[in-house]
């Protein structure tokens, strides 16, 4: 005897068509002109920031850097969907989210420039630092969400990671645990179809990444990740549901990495230019601009002013970054423990003597 015990569906949320026109049944927020403009501005700022960071790297003034070109809708839409008191746990490609959340732009520059102080930003103080080991921050997000649950705090932990990260066991374990505890946690996948040179087809046989949620018994859905309104609307709904006690959601945002993996990568080694060109037609900034122009929410003059403003904002941050001298070497001891254990004092003194010499 064979009987069906349970059925599952993966749904996709889209708002804007690639040409910027509205698809049927748009969410309420499309009427919020102010929001749409803010989303657009944030994506442009992110793109400006990325371009400048790459230029700094190319001229030897920044370390390895991971641009978010073409994927700006994911971090921006995600951060915009959060409340200030929520906690963000980013991977390493979410500068767009950091900036939206109020991290001064010189901080990510400092971090990628090789200075720990880049993670000690003035605000949001409770957000987590950039996480380099892929997927390892998913358990942290579960921990933060569990803290909120235990405190009965109406706050949500939002964690972002890539398509590659969905192959990590710790990500699965964190989602599974979030399910058991119905944690106020939202996990957002920047599904940019590549993990360095590994295409999604070698990452998993699952047709969608949203369906990874089914294994954890939690909600999962897919959104058009080149559509910042869709990302915003879907993550917003997930975050508010989580806040209301409705449990965790996994949101797969399908986008595309138009840039190299990092400045240390040369993506022409492993993927066709044609594929990249195709995806330029879908990218989120032009799409939303078209939409805004169409609806009269935006003008050519606004655009020029914005570009100028973004350049200015970024340039000021770059100047602050470049003007920041390195920390004192002994800082490596100062923040290792709350108080330096006596056993480490001789090493500390040795370094201090070198530092002072």
């Amino acid at each position: 005897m064979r009987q069906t015990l349970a059925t599952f569906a993966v749904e996709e949320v889209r708002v804007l068509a690639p040409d910027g026109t509205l698809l049927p049944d748009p969410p309420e927020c499309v009427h919020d002109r102010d929001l749409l403009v803010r989303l657009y501005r944030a994506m442009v700022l992110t793109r400006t920031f990325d371009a400048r960071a790459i230029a700094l790297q190319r001229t030897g003034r920044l370390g390895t850097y991971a641009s978010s070109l073409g994927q700006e809708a994911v971090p921006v839409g995600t951060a915009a969907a959060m409340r200030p008191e929520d906690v963000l746990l980013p991977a390493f490609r979410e500068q767009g989210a950091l900036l939206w959340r109020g991290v001064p732009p010189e901080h990510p520059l400092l971090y990628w420039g090789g200075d720990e102080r880049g993670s000690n930003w003035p605000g949001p103080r409770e957000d987590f630092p950039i996480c380099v080991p892929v997927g390892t921050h998913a358990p942290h997000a579960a921990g933060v969400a569990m803290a909120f649950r235990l405190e009965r705090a109406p706050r949500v932990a939002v964690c972002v990671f890539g398509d590659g990260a969905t192959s990590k066991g710790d990500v699965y374990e964190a989602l599974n645990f979030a399910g058991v505890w119905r944690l106020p946690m939202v996990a957002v996948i920047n599904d940019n179809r590549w993990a360095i040179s590994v295409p999604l087809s070698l990452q998993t046989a699952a047709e969608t990444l949203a369906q990874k949620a089914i294994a954890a018994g939690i909600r999962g859905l897919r959104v058009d990740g080149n559509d910042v309104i869709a990302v915003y609307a879907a993550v917003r709904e997930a975050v508010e549901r989580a806040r209301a006690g409705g449990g965790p959601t996994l949101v797969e945002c399908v986008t595309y990495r138009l840039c190299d993996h990092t400045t240390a990568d040369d993506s022409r080694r492993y993927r066709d230019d044609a594929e990249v060109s195709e995806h330029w037609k879908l990218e989120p900034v032009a799409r939303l601009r078209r939409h805004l122009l169409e609806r009269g929410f935006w003008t050519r003059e606004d655009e020029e002013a914005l570009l100028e403003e973004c350049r200015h904002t970024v340039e000021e941050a770059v100047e602050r970054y470049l003007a920041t001298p390195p920390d004192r070497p002994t800082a490596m001891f100062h923040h290792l423990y709350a108080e330096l254990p006596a056993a480490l004092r001789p090493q500390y003194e040795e370094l201090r003597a070198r530092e002072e010499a």
Partner: protein
Amino acid sequence: MPELTLVEAVRMALARAMEEDPKVLVLGEDVGKNGGVFRATEGLYERFGPERVIDTPLSEALFAGLGLGLAARGFRPVVEFQFMGFIYPAIDQVVNHVGRLRNRTRGRLSCPLVIRAPFGGGIRAPEHHSESTEAMFCHIPGIRVVIPSSPRRAYGLLLAAIRDPDPVVFLEPKRIYRAFREQVEDDGAQLPLDRAFVLREGRDVTLVTWGACVKEALEAAEQAQERGISVEVIDLATLKPYDAETVLGSVAKTGRLVILHEAARTAGFGAEIVARVAEEGLFSLTAPVVRVTGYDTVVPLPRLEDWYFPDVPRVLAAIEQVVSWR
């Protein structure tokens, strides 16, 4: 004052810490109703409820990261790994995050997490239940490694570990979980996290050890005494950071050093102690150092385990070797 076993002292310290600080949580496999497979958390679930004593899924890679998230938000999680043999999926979190959060954020966030695990052999346990890999943890920056060797020290050191603002790996020698009792007062008094304990003073040989081996060390010292050899027994107790001063002071006096640990010899923590003495107390030494340790093999299953773990005769032989050296 109650006479407690080591595992009972662990339990008393956990209860005390949970009582005095509502932010202290206990998490792990089977720590709830079952009270832990060694009963270290027995009664806590009933007393503090399911939101403070939490049975996690069977996901070791998750625990430490979950603990970090909770700790960064001001909780004081005490995460139990059922056996040290199953702690390895969590090493990634310990190396890459737990020991780094404070430093990475220059103090903006921190990680007052305690990782507990029973370790060591000698209880005729199945495969993977007898290893001691404390040395691997002692190499990781930003954490502390603590190993008690008696009920009293378990109580005081665990309290200190839980109250400490930084992460502590707390390894419990399961062979002596119930091997003997000691009077332990539930007075909330903690012990220092960077001080070795001189358990027996002596003139001729310094014997440094930790955990369950303290038992063999004291017995060997006693037997040596009968042969006219005076052995100073040091329980290192806090392996990272460790108290080199006490060891160096003792070697300065005795001139002879024997190290005793269960773990495999190569790159075991004994090597670190010896190295330190060779750097800072070399000319105190009047005889070559001897390490009495497990072999550099996989720990055998129970039928052969007695051949693997250092026993009193091996320790005594080492003591006699350093004393009779010339």
